[in-house]
């Protein structure tokens, strides 16, 4: 089963308000930011879509002892990613420059 908290309805913080000052991490709704940025359309909790599943990414990071800093590079760098069919594409760039929000999203991803 997919973790139920993945789908919990949280409407608290909007991305706009997050961009002010430096909000406490606890207030960042990382899942909402992730979905508002369309990340979920390529990264499913457990299923391989166009991008690897969150479970797979988390397992890889654990295995290779990588942390959220590495994940943040992927969501901000717009680096080329290799697809299954051998072609390459620029990776999506998250729409916030707020490091606190990026960190929250990365941690959320790696905790799946």
């Amino acid at each position, binding site marked *: 089963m997919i973790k139920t908290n993945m*789908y919990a309805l949280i409407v608290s913080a909007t991305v706009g308000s997050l961009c002010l000052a430096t909000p406490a991490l606890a207030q960042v709704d990382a899942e909402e930011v992730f979905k*508002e940025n369309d990340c*979920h*359309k*390529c990264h499913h909790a457990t299923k391989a*879509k*166009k991008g690897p599943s969150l479970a797979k990414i988390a397992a890889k990071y654990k295995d290779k002892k990588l942390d959220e800093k590495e994940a943040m590079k992927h969501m901000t760098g717009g680096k080329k990613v290799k697809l299954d069919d051998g*072609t390459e594409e620029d990776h999506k760039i998250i729409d916030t420059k707020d490091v606190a929000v990026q960190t929250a999203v990365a941690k959320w991803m790696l905790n799946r």
Partner: protein
Amino acid sequence: MKKRALMIGISLSAIAAGCASVATGPQAINWDKVPATKVALFYPGQSSYQWLRSEAHAGAAKETARGDACTSCHDDPKEEQRQGAKILSGKHPLEPHAAAIKGKNGHIDMTVQAAYDDKNAYLRFQYKTHNPNHPGNDYPGYRFDGKEWKAFGGMRLNKNVLAGKTATVYENRVNIMLDDGKVPGFAQQGCWLTCHDGERDMQKEPTKDQVEANALMKAIKKSDVRKFIPGTRTNPMDWSTGKPLEEIAKMKANGEFLELMQWRAHRSDKVGGADDGFVLEYRNFDAGKNHFNSNMDSKTKLPKFMFDQAKAGTKAYTAGDYGKKEMILIKGANAVPFDPNAGWKEGDILPQYILSAEDAAGSAADNKALSEWKNGVQTVVFIRPLGLANADDKALKPGGVYNVGFAVHDDNMTGRGHHVSYTKTLGIGAKADITAVKLN
């Protein structure tokens, strides 16, 4: 996720109050016993076949072009809700008129149920109308300007409505598009296969002259571009590349077309009908005669019918009556032949269509419908005969599984201004997303 949805217990016998036989037939179905499936519909804006295959559909153009299912990516439990809200946010290129339709709901949660007996399939839909105070059964009219009868009113995205030159008025509709597996890609991409740049109110809409100069459009005598399936074009990315009629006729004979059924709050509801059409090179109506007909005499440029003063209490309406009075003209019920000398005043309005259950005939008259709008909830039951053998119909058969897409035109919308669902499967007594149960 729970598929069984909470039921709003409107029984069909209540709906059928006023209909003839209440004890038997579709009116007697106890819908409380029929499983209900929740289907989400979202406002798609101008997400055409072409847009979906362009770089604007970031990271998905190639996948869509190769035929991947929309829901292989768009599968979040709240996906339709998110997508509709995003498109209407005012910041999304898919809806250039977002400001003009501010407040429009981005998605609709619809409940779908299905049943069948030896004769018919019964498809029941329920959704909350965005306007809780009106059933959406008004329709544009012909307004007398002192000299001539001219079209009056239009849907929200109509150019004259956007320019503030005419009133906002259009009927609600519930629509079903159905494929029996013969249209390549429909199972994966559903209604979006038929939505193209160049169609009415879409990007790159051609002029009437351009359409009329096109070979296929000339051959089918049309002056606008409407829904079509990709196979009818040599280049599916371009509406103007229609194949020769013989090839299109071959596709039809092979069953390569989509069924399209529409319940209309103004033009079919009062006479118990739902139109029967099909999408091939155009959005066509089936052969025969529809439940509604134009109320304009093309030669005299005068309406054909007016209201019967004795029955309707008036011979015409005015703009101020929209939203307040029911302005539906029905042959044999409240209509009499138009009298040009009845003392018409500037501002008098007559309906653009005249309805008749008796006049409806042939394949176009196959579908029936029952409906009720109560407490802001619209209920519609389509009644579709099983095993239709007409050349323009998809036959529904026990054991059959079909791909279906649903759309709702709500709150004064037509054309692209609807909410649309991703594809679902419908099984007639067979396991599917929506399974029609056998009645006994």
